């Protein structure tokens, strides 16, 4: 392509050094595959708690486990990480530079849909691999899907569907939406409402609040007077935390209504405390306290992150990285990003955090989702003991059907 030709003029110096390095390596060990993993995440801002340094630790554990399981493997791994500061242009720059100059083969995590979609395009152009865990946008495996991208942990469709369907089935059949007034909130509201109505539930009202509102009391009063059984929170981050906190204050849960958080992470529940968050219903694909294996993994993770509990995003980074390394080892090559992703799709996935699963042709990782309810302070046995399992959504129902996503890859 034309672009590549021109890049050569600029990157001449780098190429010469790179060439020399390649020669040196080549003579030393012919078989060795040097993989470089770049964890592009938010280290300092809104998503630092649900991804951030915990993500880097998850990558490290994945590499460690891969090497433990394959002691004789000729795949050597190096990890780099960077902070995109939630700025799409900084993220773009880092991704470009990593690939062009530092030989990064795979970028993992990348919360913030804006940055993730930008990286998705770069990776596609440069034929590398993108394993996204942190971003919510279902476009990554829909209209904007790419043969170089795997979307591991969750997406907006799955959150809406999982929460909506499971709650209606459990008797929560009248809904009031508290929606963040921008594209993301609208999408969550629309998708959830559709699921609720399809399953026999009823929408009794909604109010749209501006993003980054500190006071929700006006909106909560409207929700309260609607008498809906379920108040669906189609918002995220600080807005979700504020609305839950103030709902507790206004006695909404005590008054018999339930809150359903459509995008809530374990780190958010921690930020709220059980006193405020109790009774909240939410969907996650990973909970650290689910079984012995997740508990053992969490213990190892916590050696680097004492006092924190891992989120599903960090768990997804671990599992995705591990599966990527398996695919590279099986393929005995890392150079063609499309081929590696194709191999990842071919191999069934199996890890201690998500169990057995598959990656679909559109890049969507398929696994079960779980509906949790946040425990009352009296029920909790200690820090981190926050969820009770209310329902399991089987893998085949958890994610958007392939044909509905509009992904060109799905058409063969």
């Amino acid at each position, binding site marked *: 392509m*034309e*672009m590549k030709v*021109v*890049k050569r*003029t*600029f990157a*001449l*110096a780098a190429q010469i050094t790179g060439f020399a390095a390649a020669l040196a390596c080549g003579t030393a060990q012919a078989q060795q595959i040097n993989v470089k993993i770049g964890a592009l995440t938010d*280290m*300092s801002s809104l998503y*630092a708690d649900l991804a951030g*340094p915990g993500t880097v630790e998850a990558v490290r554990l994945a590499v460690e486990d891969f090497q433990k399981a394959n002691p004789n493997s000729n795949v050597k791994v190096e990890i*780099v*990480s*960077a*902070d*995109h*500061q*939630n*700025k*799409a*242009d*900084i993220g*773009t*720059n*880092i991704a*470009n*530079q990593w690939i*062009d*100059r530092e030989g990064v083969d795979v970028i993992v995590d990348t919360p*913030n*849909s*804006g940055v993730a*979609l*930008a990286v998705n*395009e770069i990776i596609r152009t440069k034929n590398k691999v993108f394993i996204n865990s942190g971003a919510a*946008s279902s*476009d990554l495996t829909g209209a*904007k899907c790419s043969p170089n991208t795997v979307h591991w942990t969750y997406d907006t469709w799955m959150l809406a569907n999982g929460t909506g369907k499971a709650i209606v089935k459990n008797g929560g059949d009248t809904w009031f939406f508290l929606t963040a*007034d*921008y*594209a*993301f909130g609208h999408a969550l509201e629309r998708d959830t409402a559709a699921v609720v109505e399809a399953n026999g539930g009823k929408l009794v009202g909604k109010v749209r609040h*501006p*993003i980054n509102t500190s006071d929700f009391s006006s909106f909560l009063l409207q929700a309260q007077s609607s008498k809906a059984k379920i108040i669906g929170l189609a918002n995220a981050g600080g807005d979700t935390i504020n609305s839950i906190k103030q709902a507790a204050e206004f006695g909404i849960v005590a008054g018999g209504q339930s809150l359903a958080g459509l995008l809530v992470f374990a780190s958010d529940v921690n930020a709220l405390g059980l006193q405020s968050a109790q009774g909240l219903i939410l969907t996650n694909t990973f909970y650290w306290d689910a079984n012995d294996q997740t508990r053992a993994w969490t213990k190892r993770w916590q050696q680097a992150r004492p006092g924190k509990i891992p989120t599903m995003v960090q768990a997804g980074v671990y599992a995705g990285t591990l599966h990527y390394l398996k695919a590279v080892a099986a393929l005995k090559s890392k150079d063609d990003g499309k081929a590696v992703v194709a191999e990842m799709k071919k191999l069934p996935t199996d890890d201690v955090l998500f169990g057995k699963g598959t990656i679909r042709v559109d890049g969507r990782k398929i696994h079960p989702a779980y509906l949790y309810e946040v425990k009352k302070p009296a029920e909790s046995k200690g820090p981190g003991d926050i969820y009770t399992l209310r329902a399991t959504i089987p893998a085949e129902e958890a994610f958007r059907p392939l044909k509905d996503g509009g992904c060109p890859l799905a058409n063969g």
Partner: protein
Amino acid sequence: MQASSSPVSATPVTVRQPSLLQRQGELIGFVIMVAALIVAPYFTYPLFLMQAMCFALFACAFNLLIGYVGLLSFGHALYFGWASYISAHAAKVWGFNPEFAILTGTLTAAVCGFLAGSLAIRRQGIYFAMITLALAQMMYFVALRMKFTGGEDGIQAVPRGYLFGFINLNNETTMYVFVMAVFLAGFLLIYRIIHSPFGEVLKAIRENEPRAISLGYKTDRYKLIAFVLSATLAGVAGSTKAITLQIASLTDVNWPMSGEVVLMTLVGGLGTIFGPVVGAFVILAMQFKLSSVGEWVLVIQGVIFVTCVLLFRRGIVGEIAALFRR
């Protein structure tokens, strides 16, 4: 105060010719800058340089207000960000050629600048700063809500397209030359404005507004024109950035961006010609280098702010110039 009905100025301000030494210094500086920009892509990442040039132009535009009229706008992200949205939208959805996309974005910034400027110049000093900040925040919320901006996703994969219909900007070298041309044109325009009779009036307003009024100048009108010029040039920078990096996002229009451009100008030197350029490169390089260190970016920026205000109010270029003058 607003509608001073004095007749159009009868006493023209004499254009102070800059001293020969200063002229020479500026010429040398300009030559060094152009040379550096030509050579740099062989040593550094070209995309980074293009981004830095866009921010440098942004900072120069901002400096036109703070440095030469003494007005601190804390809301310049409005013009930069909205221009970048509109030009990205024009290029992607309306299929405009890059030059028309940039023009559309720039016009948007000019209109926004006129509206916000008309409000803001009604107050002075600190109030002016707070009003510009508040208006920018309002427009940030508007951007967040509008459908075409894509909310948190931003506008992605903006096509670079063909300049004038036939120069392919997907070619990295061409793109680089184009951005450099835009940057230098903007830079020279600002230089020209500063050294024109109009610029001299601006400086007179900065030094002593009541005196300028008493001399018969409608200072409000001058301030408004300067504000619109500054916003427009910020718009050029924002639009070009959107085409170059092929993305327009909320970052460009949010208040930390307004703070960053203040920081760039402050570090480089308020009211110096080359200061904003140096500052932009320094701050961007720092952000870039620090991205792998992680968490401390915000704190370091804060420390630079405090240090500059307390110890280096002249900024890098200002200090260097002072050295030479000695």
